[in-house]
């Protein structure tokens, strides 16, 4: 009959504690879902890259650089330049509008007010882009509220066309990407210690001077990050130019769409997509370089 005992017998190997992972392994384990997700995205990008050097009808087996050569034609170059210009201008406008909002958010004392502000800023991210475009239609359309008010006041005879052109698209780009500018700017401004402002004020600087010469330079990394995010987001914008541009503002993402439907030219669409990604990445890298330099200067001065 076998005896079972609760005490450890002499000579028997000690009970091993539960298996633990090293801190490095734990970190990798923790990161693995995110890395898996990123891996899928990167794989998709690589597939697009492969398709871009394929040929129509032989996307996976063919090899040709014709799709890239086609992008050098004025039709596509104009579209690329228009895309970059609208993305850049929208980033500048969004940042200019976001700076006061971000400053306000960073200096709010009441948690309730801060939450209300945050919710208001985040609203465009929560509402469907299609609905937002309908909102613009109701306000700015030829028969919209603004035109009706202006005609009612006798200021204009015919409706002003604010939609279905570059102005309309620009407004849409700024509005939809606004939260991406506000959040990093507010975060950067919250990081600027009040003691700097107090020191500047003590030395006789006016509020405007404090803002311009202390808060703004110290928040520059956040401002550049905000601008970069808006630029990248808007460079690939599709719904806004499609709906608010009335198909009359040929941004590159819309051209990509045209290549897929109805032309079924996947290599041309992929090549345009790759060019857009590379251009955006190049600009983001430059911005990161400038931000990093600025950050290092700030750290050195502190």
């Amino acid at each position, binding site marked *: 009959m076998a005896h079972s005992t609760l005490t450890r017998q002499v000579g028997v190997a000690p009970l091993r504690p539960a298996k633990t992972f090293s801190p490095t392994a734990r970190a990798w384990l923790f990161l693995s879902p995110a890395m898996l997700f990123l891996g899928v995205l990167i794989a998709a990008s690589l597939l697009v890259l492969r398709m871009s050097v394929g040929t129509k009808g032989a996307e996976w087996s063919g090899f040709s650089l014709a799709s890239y050569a086609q992008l050098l034609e004025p039709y596509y170059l104009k579209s690329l330049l228009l895309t970059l210009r609208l993305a850049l201008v929208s980033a500048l406008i969004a940042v200019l509008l976001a700076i006061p909002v971000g400053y306000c958010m960073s200096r709010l004392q009441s948690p309730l007010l801060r939450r209300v502000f945050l919710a208001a800023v985040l609203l465009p991210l929560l509402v469907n882009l299609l609905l937002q475009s309908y909102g613009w239609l109701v306000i700015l*359309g030829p028969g*919209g509220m603004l035109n009706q008010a202006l005609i009612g006041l006798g200021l204009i005879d015919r409706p002003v066309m604010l939609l*279905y052109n570059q102005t309309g698209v620009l407004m849409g780009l700024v509005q939809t990407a606004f939260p991406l500018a506000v959040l990093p700017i507010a975060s950067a401004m919250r990081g600027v210690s009040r003691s700097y402002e107090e020191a500047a004020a003590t030395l006789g600087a006016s509020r405007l001077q404090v803002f311009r010469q202390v808060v703004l330079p110290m928040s520059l990394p956040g401002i550049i990050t905000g601008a970069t995010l808006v630029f990248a987001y808007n460079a690939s914008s599709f719904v806004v130019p499609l*709906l608010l541009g009335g198909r009359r*503002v040929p941004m590159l993402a819309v051209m990509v769409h045209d290549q*897929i439907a*109805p032309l079924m030219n996947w290599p041309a669409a992929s090549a345009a997509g790759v060019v857009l990604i590379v251009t955006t990445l190049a600009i983001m890298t430059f911005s990161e370089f400038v931000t990093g330099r600025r950050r290092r200067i700030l750290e050195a001065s502190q």
Partner: protein
Amino acid sequence: MSEHDFSRRTFIKTVGAASVAAAALSFPFIKASASDMRFQGKTLRLLTWSDDTGLAALRNIAATFEAKTGAKVIADRTGSTSEMVAKLKAGGDRPQYDIITLAGVGAEGLASAGLLERPDLNRIPNLRDVPAQYQTGADGHGIGYLLWCNSLIYSTRTVKEAPNSYAALWDKDMAPNIFLPPPNWTEAMDLIIIAAKLAGGDEHNVEPGFKKLEELKDRVITLGENPNQIAELFRTGSLDMGGLYAPAFFPKQIRDPSYGLGATFGMKEGFYTDLMLSVMPKHRPGDTDLAYAFIDHSLDPLVQGKMAEDIFNGPVNAKAIISAEARKSPYILTPEQISEKAIMHDNAFLASVHDQWIRRYTEIFSS
């Protein structure tokens, strides 16, 4: 208690019988073929559009087919033809669908990729009533299903009489504010041909057409990518006319007087149509007889008539049954009107010029 139970059961039975009777009365063609139950319990997987045409196909084709045969139709309503093409291509050798209904250009793409089976026309009895030019497409890989018919759309508030020529688009007194189709749509290609013909050219000599289209640039409010937005612009009085555009985009709005939306197929030059096709992928998962039965059912004269009345698509069946009431409508096309005035796309020719024409059209109307 038992009396209560009995009453409830009787009530349920009565309501059930009444529902079946009402359904049978609404769909007499179900009753006519109700004995064909050899597909009982089988499943057919259908891929169709997500728009009103797709919904109407579920109501008028899939639901009646289920009632007639006892088979189950599992429908996937995907956005557009190109999305359907992408979905089927992604499936490779293992497609998830037995039947796909899509535009001709999509079917051609799938056929050239070798993903479609060429159907046996002898297994589709209703095809004998379909005129030869609408029977097949995509090099014999697709069966004609319905005609996507493009009209001139106009505001019933500002345009008092339905235009009888495409030249109305160039009449700025009649229609100061217009919309045109977006460049990537086949409708834009048809408009280029129409403009060319109005300017003395034709589809092989389109240069005069592009010059004529340039005359419209300042009056074009938008190139209507989104039909709901177009309807809204008509409702708010911002548009007077536009096209080519299918009334099938506006089945609800045209019936709602608040939109002031009218459409006409009565142009003396005729109206352009695109043949929509039913295709069968190779290696499809379901029963082949069932797939043929479904295609045949979609060509049934009553089903074709219902689709035409419901969604303003043109029937391909020359014997499509259109009610006397519907025949009075300017938006509902009869087989006779189609035979008289419908102009078919030459998809093969359009495919050869599509890329260049899209560019020219985009450049003309870029803001």
